[in-house]
């Protein structure tokens, strides 16, 4: 079972020049950077309605086979957590005002989805067959 670790804003420590952490700008192409020695990649949501980081996470996890931590930072809200989990994020830094219980409730809500994703690539129709 895949999980998304939720951490509070104050627990999040930004890169601080540590070489094994990569902060990727929202409009950057993850395929254009070197992932050599990278343990953690922070993807940023400037606003929760900006969906580019979902595609970045998908490309990192599925296309590039990145095995380390993918962390969601910025405008990270409870209601988008299931999408983050499915796109390949493993850690989400909740915005300071978010309620942890509400967040966990959203993650547990849907038992399954129609389409495959970065974590479970098989769509429902193949599983059901």
């Amino acid at each position, binding site marked *: 079972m895949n999980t998304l670790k939720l951490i509070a804003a104050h627990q999040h420590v930004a890169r601080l020049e540590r070489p094994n952490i990569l902060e990727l700008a929202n409009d950057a192409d993850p395929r254009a950077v070197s992932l050599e020695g990278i343990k953690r990649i922070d993807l940023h949501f400037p606003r929760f309605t900006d*969906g580019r980081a979902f595609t970045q996470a998908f490309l990192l996890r599925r296309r590039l086979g990145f095995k380390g931590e993918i962390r969601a930072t910025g405008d990270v809200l409870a209601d988008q957590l299931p999408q983050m989990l499915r796109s390949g994020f493993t850690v989400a830094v909740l915005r300071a005002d978010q309620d942890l219980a509400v967040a966990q409730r959203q993650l547990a*809500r849907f038992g399954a989805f129609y389409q495959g994703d970065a974590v479970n690539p098989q769509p429902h129709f193949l599983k059901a067959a």
Partner: protein
Amino acid sequence: MYQYTDFDRQFVHTRASQYRDQLERNLAGRLSDDEFRPLRLQNGWYIQRHAPMLRVAVPYGELSGAQLRVLARIARDYDQGWGHFTTRQNIQFNWIPLARSADVMDLLASVDMHGIQTSGNCIRNITSDERAGIAVDEIADPRPFCEILRQWSTLHPEFAFLPRKFKVAVIGAREDRAASAWHDVGLQLVRDDDGALGFRVLVGGGMGRTPVIASTLREFLPWQQILNYLEAVVRVYNRWGRRDKLYKARIKILVKAEGQRFMQEVEAEYRQIIEHDGAPHTLTQAELDRVTASFVPPALHGLRKDVSTKVAHILRAAAAADVEFSRWLEQNVAAHQHPNLRAVTLSLKRLGHAPGDATAQHMDIVADLADQFSAGEIRVTHDQNLLLPWVRCDQLPELWRAARQAGLARPHIRLLTDMIACPGGDFCALANARSIPIAQAIAERYQDLDELHDLGEIDLHISGCMNSCGHHHSGHIGILGVDKDGQEFYQITLGGSDGSRLSGEATPGKVVGPSFSAAEVPDVIETVLDTYRRERQSDERFIATLRRVGVEPFKQAAHQARHHQEAQAEATA
């Protein structure tokens, strides 16, 4: 119709409970309006002029009688008694208080319905041909593919926050009854030289401020690859689509700006999905068969193969005796794949009602008619009418009498008064001007059926603002509401096409000079139509005459219809 599985049903109920959770947090002040907004939008809830507006998804326009009765109940018990059918085959309600919205979602879920992705910057409800699965010119039934696409796009984790909305239409017939080239993605089922089934893929069409006709990305894509290919298209759009300006954010702007580069990006991404990701969404024959099994023609009681000549004779006799019935057969009844069945359009264009509006009572009546005459099935048409897809031809006279009694048998389908119109400024917060009074004024002027039939098939489309919900760009005659110093004015366009055989290749209409006042519009329409009658040759249709003689004589006539005296009086008042 598609039959929900337990999985589908559970999914819609879970979605309804998720929405209730979000609504309750919003009402309790624990989820801000700004943060609730995209969540409610992706369930169909807008905030409009008078109250929230709910858009309920009618996937590819198919409804059962039982579903329509629940829509009637929502209209009656939660709204002010009516609903509005849209060009995207959905239904909208305008008066439901937000506090009751979660109850409505539960009610919808009880009949396998929802408002998922009927709004918001995501892949919207899929539209299709109103005659899908019954059209005589059909290459293949698009409905199984529509349903497969619906499932794939539902709560797609990567594509819930695209730069802008994303609309897909799928057709399977030679005639385009879904304006597919006007969509972000238009999919047309085709066969290759070997008879294999696939899609012609069109991308980047759209209306709005910048009307664009979609470009062909693939002449032939094997049907098994449609989800993989769409994944590539939407991913490229999500990465590169503009997010700085709302009106530049649709995929059409990206396709226009990048042209060949966009196509190369999509093809490269598609190859990666196939070669690297292992093409996980490749459709199997088993899945297509499973979904297709839902769409087998209903077993119709009393349907015999050998009665067609006899019935045709009876119908001819009845039609000869009654000109109205004869016109109804001609305009509102269409041929069917089964020789003894017909597709019957019930008109929702009546004086005193906005185009596409239906009262709760009408919805109940149509549900009854569907149960009695059409195997319990109804289609919502792109032109904002309702269609009964499985009518036995020997029952046409009986259906006609019942429909006429209910005021749904006006024999004007595809004629001038069968117009498309958005709700406009009476309801919509976005609109610059009202659409309904303009539609009414024109309908009032053209009540005479002899005249309407003489004018023939004309697409009249009315939008209250540049968002183009009333598809003014694609009308033979288009009317667009504009705001001039706080006053309602209307821009007229001529020669637009939705891409149907009659209208020709999809194209936006050309603007006829400066805009007109509301009072001038019916006169302009009249003078344009008079010009057509003067210029036409034999049985030439309006759009054909316009194409042949050019827009100039129509333009001149329109300018002569300006109310100069009125304008002068106002100027000096």
